[in-house]
């Protein structure tokens, strides 16, 4: 199934070749969890601070249980803030 994977700020270094504007479309197997996806691209767990699926926050404890669906947009940030 196809999903979008987005890594921002310092995490953009972990995006595979072919990504553009902090985003890449990926073909992944059914049932993959958001936590597995983050591990697959070797994003350090402590750096994956803000994890959103379709804009909704996924708490750390749920990341290895939250299964992705076709068309999902996964976005990840390190600890950041602004104002």
């Amino acid at each position, binding site marked *: 199934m196809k999903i979008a994977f*987005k890594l*921002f*700020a*310092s995490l*953009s270094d972990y995006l595979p070749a072919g990504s553009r*504007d*902090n985003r890449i479309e990926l073909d992944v197997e059914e049932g993959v969890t958001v936590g597995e996806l983050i591990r697959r691209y070797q994003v350090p767990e402590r750096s994956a*601070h*803000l994890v*959103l699926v*379709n*804009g*909704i*926050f996924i*708490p750390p404890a749920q990341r290895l249980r939250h299964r992705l669906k076709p068309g999902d*947009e996964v*976005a990840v*940030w*390190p*600890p*950041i*803030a*602004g*104002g």
Partner: protein
Amino acid sequence: MGWNRKILRVDLTKGICSEEPLNMQWAQEYLGSRGLATKYLVSEIDPKVDPLSPDNKMIMATGPLTGTMASTGGRYTVVTKGPLTGAIACSNSGGFFGAEMKFAGWDMIVFEGRSPKPVYLYVENDRAELRDAAHLWGRSCWETEETIKHELQDPLVRISSIGRAGENGVHYACIVNDLHRAAGRSGVGAVMGSKNLKAVALRGTRGVSGIRDFGEFMQATTAAKKVLADNAVTGQGLPKYGTQVLMNVINEIGALPTRNHRDVQFEDANKISAEAMHEKRPTDGKPHLVTNAACFGCTIACGRISEIDKGHFTVKNSPKYWGASGGLEYEAAWALGAANGVGDLEALQYANLLCNEQGMDPISFGATVGAAMELYEMGVLTKEQIGLDAPFGSAEALARLAEMTATGEGFGRELGLGSKRLCTKYGHPELSMSVKGQEFPAYDSRGIQGMGLAYATSNRGACHLRGYTVASEVLGIPVKTDPHVTEGKAELVKAFQDATAVFDSAGICVFTSFAWTLADVQPQIAAACDGDWSMDRLNEVGERIWNMERQFNNAAGFTAKDDNLPPRLTSEPARTGPAKGMVNQLDKMLPEYYQVRGWTPEGVPTAETLARLGL
């Protein structure tokens, strides 16, 4: 105790500068800076005064930690009655000006009356005098700063000034210090302009004395700095990416107000983000961002210094804008960009430079342009009226309107009065995206419910810096709450509002609160100041300041009806993103908020609340 114990009173009408002792009883009750200056203001002016009349006063104030070795201890506050809102105006700024006031031996400067001719105040330690500013009137903040430094032959003099926006009465004019730091919101620069006061130039060589226990203070400030350094947000995220890193976050959660809040997501958000600031431009191969920068005593250094593309249409014939300068920050990038649908980073920086140069708030300016663009697209405003085509997304219109507003040319005069007056004049007051006349910052409250309550109840009109629940609702600081629910938000908003009043009044930057809680601030204040500065006491001081500001606004004529949001946010559901279908449910939160505050259902502090807080 972190105080010089004296204030400077400047009677501009008579041209007299005089020294007074600082009211130390009030310093115990209101801490400093925002709280203490507001206490002075509300004690000295009629709440119904015309903000631009000589009867209004304007106070520049430091806090007990300003000028000390506390991290970020460089803040100063400008307190007055604001022309944009008619409410209390309280804008604070970093840079180096606040610390210099302390070094010169003053805690606060109170300006009253109106000078018969343009003047600037020069202070060198004990010496304070008003000087002729005829040659500075009509000049920008940048020219003013350069000219005064040259005249005084002193590159270390610190200057706050107004540009042409403040002289022309732009209702959201700023006071700019150190070239690109600003007391930005609510039009404090217009008040300064109405007093014919062009600038304040300070030179202090005395350092800060009077710390209660210096050894204890060293320990407390060192420990607190370690907290900032060890925290991933204040130690790494903010210095590397600045505030603008929020652009993609807020867009992703569907709360990035776009095209005057018609939309909640901007298709070009990534083009105006912190990530884009780091990317090399195809035109000249250079990234926009040159370096980060810190204000006095700051160990975070979130500030951005960038360089515009010299070949861009906005500056190709204006070399004066080619050097490295301040910006972009998140709020400015949003207000000049997403708020009016412009995704051209260089155009945003150009408009931002004009805001810094001529002293105007990019948030209110950008949001007012957004309102004008909507009126233009509706056919209410025409090309002939505006003087140019102004559809959403036009970088050319943004740049030209910034020039016109900054210099008071043509339709820029109307834009300079803010979106509320503009939209009311043209028959659509509902299209002003504002509260109490002040434009929203960069968070759409349909997708972040608590911010709707924070905006509606902010004492200076719509503002993110009175109660930044985004920290909790989006970023999980100090704990994550659900941005889509209303439950618990009344308590959350109150807690943020009261704590922020303490941070502001101490003389430190509110960005420390991404890592510090009041428990980190308390030992620093307790070591610096005489008296009981327990956590309970600080919480009480924060609540007292909030209620004092509220009482001023109530006396100025504001009522519960003004604790409101534009109908677009409470009746037009978000069209895309995770908040799709949602409106802000202010009606659910507001009654609970009044209750939590100890106010009547009409939004008035009860006698019991006032007695408890000693008001």
